[in-house]
């Protein structure tokens, strides 16, 4: 085990996979000389050269689509989109091409590519640079979508994504890049499509992913001191969705709250609430609650931005409301 940041875990994983497999190439804006807007690719140009770490013009549709075509010929491109927001410029290539080519051509041509990009608000980047659009991609058959919440998972899920034969969307998060954690040395590969119970508990389940998992764990630890035992399920994979792990937890605790960074309506939490009511209906003691972002283009001003985003206080409040509604007593 080595303690490192989420950023370092991603950087070292990219380095390891570039060294391991000559078909792996990195493609993106400013990933070479500039070393990436968020420095995830620092040092890789110097080590692997401009053909393996390929800077692009500002042309998301063009270079994401080029990655699709390179993957069709057997390369394993890992595309960096500067932020999740810019994926919208490439969405035809992601949704109509990367996600379709394997099935639409009758299973003749895999598209083994990765799109990695940070989501996340809270950086005062205003409305167009602060969105959490992961549900758009989680909605699309043919894609796999993963969302690591820890440095260890950043390594395990990124490694799995690069080695996977399908297009995998890896959702990173701006506010996680500097978080630290223990990362296993050597081979550490996750199984895509599996959630994890990251904290055991008996009274209530919080389901979360990415940054929300970190908040959920903080809240769960604080509530532990008050005698409330919260179980935390980290989805890790948004598509496929591990419904069974979620429902097994709720069957045990009988109460569920979803913490999500996206907007409330039609969000990840809506899917989870539907899943839980179908997979754990008779076990529920209270309606499933969702803690999600306020439905507004995110403002720049800090007081407005802060109140719009889901946080520990909102999650704590909702957990207490659910417990109170079920006359929970310690």
């Amino acid at each position, binding site marked *: 085990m080595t303690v490192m940041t989420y950023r370092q875990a991603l950087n070292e994983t990219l380095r390891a996979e570039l060294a391991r497999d000559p078909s792996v190439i990195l493609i993106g804006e400013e990933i070479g000389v500039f070393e990436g807007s968020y420095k995830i690719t620092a040092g890789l140009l110097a080590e692997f050269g401009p*053909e393996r770490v*390929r800077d*692009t*013009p500002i*042309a998301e*549709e*063009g*270079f994401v*689509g*080029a990655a*699709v*075509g*390179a*993957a*069709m*010929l057997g*390369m394993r*491109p890992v595309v960096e989109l500067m932020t999740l927001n810019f994926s919208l410029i490439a969405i*035809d*290539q992601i949704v*109509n*091409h990367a996600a379709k*080519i*394997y*099935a*639409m*051509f*009758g*299973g*003749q*041509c*895999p*598209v083994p590519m990765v799109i990695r990009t940070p989501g996340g608000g809270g950086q005062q980047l205003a409305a167009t640079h602060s969105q959490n659009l992961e549900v758009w991609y989680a909605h699309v*058959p043919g894609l*796999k979508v993963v969302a690591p919440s820890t440095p260890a998972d950043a390594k395990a899920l990124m490694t799995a994504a690069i080695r*996977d*034969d*399908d297009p995998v969307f890896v959702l990173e998060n701006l506010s996680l890049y500097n978080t630290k954690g223990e990362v296993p040395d050597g081979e550490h590969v996750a*199984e*895509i*499509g*599996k959630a994890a119970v990251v904290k055991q508990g008996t009274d209530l389940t919080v389901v979360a992913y990415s940054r929300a998992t970190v908040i959920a764990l903080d809240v769960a630890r604080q509530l532990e001191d008050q005698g409330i035992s919260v179980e935390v399920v980290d989805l890790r*994979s948004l598509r*496929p*969705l*591990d*419904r*069974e792990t979620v*429902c097994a937890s709720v*069957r045990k605790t*009988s109460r569920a709250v979803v913490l999500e960074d996206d907007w409330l309506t039609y969000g990840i939490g809506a899917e989870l609430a539907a899943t839980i*009511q*179908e*997979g*754990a*209906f*008779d*076990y*529920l*003691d209270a309606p499933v609650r969702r803690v999600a972002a306020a439905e507004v283009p995110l403002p720049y001003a800090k007081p407005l931005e802060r109140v719009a985003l889901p946080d520990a206080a909102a999650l704590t409040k909702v957990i207490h409301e659910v417990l109170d509604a079920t006359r929970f007593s310690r």
Partner: protein
Amino acid sequence: MAADPGVAPSDSTPSDVTTREHDLRDEPPEVLRGYYRQMALVRAFELKASEMYQRAKIGGYCHLNLGEEPTVVGLMSALEARDYLFTTYRDHGYALLRGMDTGRVMAELFGKTTGVSGGWGGSMHLFDMDARMLGGYGIVGGQIPPATGAALALTYRGAPGPDAEAVMCLLGDGTTNIGAFHESLNLAAVWRLPIVYVVVNNRLGMGTPVEKSSGEPLLYKRGCSYRIPGERVDGDDVVAVREAAKAALHTARTERQPMLLETVSWRLKGHSVVDPARYRSREETERLRSLDPVPAFRAHLLDLGVLDEAQAQAIDQDVEAEVDRAVAFADHSPDPTPDQLFDNAYAQEVANAPHALPGDPLMTGGSAGASTSGAAR
């Protein structure tokens, strides 16, 4: 064939045809007979596809190469087996001449398991990895970035040279206005990729003339911003198309210089099978019939003595029979069965892949017993 003013690429720009002077008598007769057979095959296939569409054997959208046969033959005779092809949704002729089995192409149109894409793609999405035809694409311009990326992949495989692989990417005239075209040409230029973009200009984007949709209607010039050389040829002239495509491919493979080729021809019928092309006057439709390049080529070969009438009729009957056999094959091929619905969901198996049909339960176990607290109270 000398340039005929009557087949200038556009009535407003007749002086901008780039002709490649040549004499058909310089071509080996068996090559010319082969070209006629290929044109006749594409023509017969497309007419049969239209008929099968009317009979509801074919669904969805169905776009035909009628009028573009010399272009199809010229381009495909220039493309080497080692090269890769990306096309638009108007892809039947290219699939046939790229070597896909006529029966399996028709079976794809019929939606059968024996189709070249297993019945998953239909008319617009013909694909064969072995033939290195990596798709017809239904989204206008959608094929251009992946084709560009395929050319990028080739740069990792080997050095440039006369035997190197290259990519040919076809697109329509209207597609030169979409962002993906310009982003891709720019990438190909800055990355020095072995790719030839071919604008198959049939003068109409659905019903909109090139001059009304393109600020620079001389489409071969649209690579200028990226210093990509362009050439425009008469798409009715199979040898001119072949020579221009060969030259462009040679430059692409030896110099990794992306190239832009424009072929200009007439779309004889509507945009797709269901389009009656009412935006054309009766005179225009009559004129187009008189310009039909397939009977013109046949007549030309008869004039030259390369073909005699009996040989020409034998070819016509031969391709008719081939297309009839293709229909019979498609008709007798099995439909996919519902149990195959998720066969192509992912290339690599994954935990918890969703396999629910409409109306299936998401989960079991939700009502398997009383709750530990609530329901019991």
